């Protein structure tokens, strides 16, 4: 129904702005209708700008900025409607060290409400986890799982 969508959108706008500014340490966001007069027929556009920069097309954002903006939008959706578990496959790949730290802080906060399974190559994300699964291929072409409880693992130098 139209009311429900508009109410959800209102909540999403606030959530997106909050998550985005946490991940970017500032900046501005806006969600706008696109297309026809009927909001349930039209589309939704994301306007976002990192701190200090002028709002421009999302196309001009860097690879890392786009990944973080998309993550902010998804976390905002999760905020207004949590999911029992969330599975993320290498979403931290294009992020620099500073952004990975902020992303991990957000991850840990949301993980209080939902289970998170994150596939990653990033040491910082690995360190932010509570539990670790290592996947290896001692026999070519056949996956083997090794599980490690993080509390028992000394942090590699």
């Amino acid at each position, binding site marked *: 129904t139209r009311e*429900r*969508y508009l*109410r*959800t959108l209102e909540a*999403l706008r606030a959530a997106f702005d909050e998550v985005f500014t946490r991940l970017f340490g500032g900046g501005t966001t806006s969600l706008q209708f*696109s*297309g026809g007069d009927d909001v*349930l027929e*039209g*589309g*939704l*556009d*994301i306007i976002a700008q990192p701190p200090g920069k002028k709002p421009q097309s*999302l196309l001009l954002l860097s690879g890392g900025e*786009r*990944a973080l*903006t*998309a*993550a902010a*939008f*998804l976390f905002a*959706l*999760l905020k*207004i*409607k949590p*999911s*029992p*578990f*969330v*599975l*993320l*496959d*290498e*979403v931290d790949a294009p992020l620099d060290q500073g952004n990975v730290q902020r992303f991990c802080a957000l991850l840990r906060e949301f993980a209080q409400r*939902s*289970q*998170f*399974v*994150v*596939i*990653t190559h990033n040491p910082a*994300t*690995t360190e932010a*986890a*509570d*539990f*670790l*699964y*290592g*996947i*290896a*291929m001692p*026999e*070519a*072409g*056949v*996956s*083997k*799982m090794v*599980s490690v409880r993080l509390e028992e693992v000394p942090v590699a130098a």
Partner: protein
Amino acid sequence: MHLKRLELCGFKTFADRTELEFMPGVTAVVGPNGSGKSNIADAVQWVLGEQSMRSLRGLSSQDVIFAGTHRRKPLGFAEAHLTFDNSCGTLPLPFDEVTISRRLFRSGESDYRINKVSCRLRDIVELFLDTGIGAGAYAIIGQGEVDAVLSAKSEDRRALVEEAA
């Protein structure tokens, strides 16, 4: 509701029966390129009823069955079992524990079960509708897929918001 465990056998590179237990909080899955991490994500999507082979990086549905290596023969079927703790009653079933199973044979025959009782694929899909985890939901983000949220058509993004409504 939370995930308890995932069991794989014959699914892509998981030729041998493998069991992953899930704890609360953040679980990181790490390993070298090609070791099978995204294959685990594919298995979760598959057992929850994914029907698009493109989302599973395959062409034909049998692409998910272990195809063999130089030392091992291909297997005859792939199966995955995903177990949830349902004591909160999120899933409309009278069980504290719910296990979703999916099996696919090389012949093309499929087998679907909820707590070992045979059902149809659509029963599984409908079970998870509105939980945030079902097909097309935003709770599973595949490798390279996060940018799609920004490059998607405006209408698709609106649909995503409607799902959260």
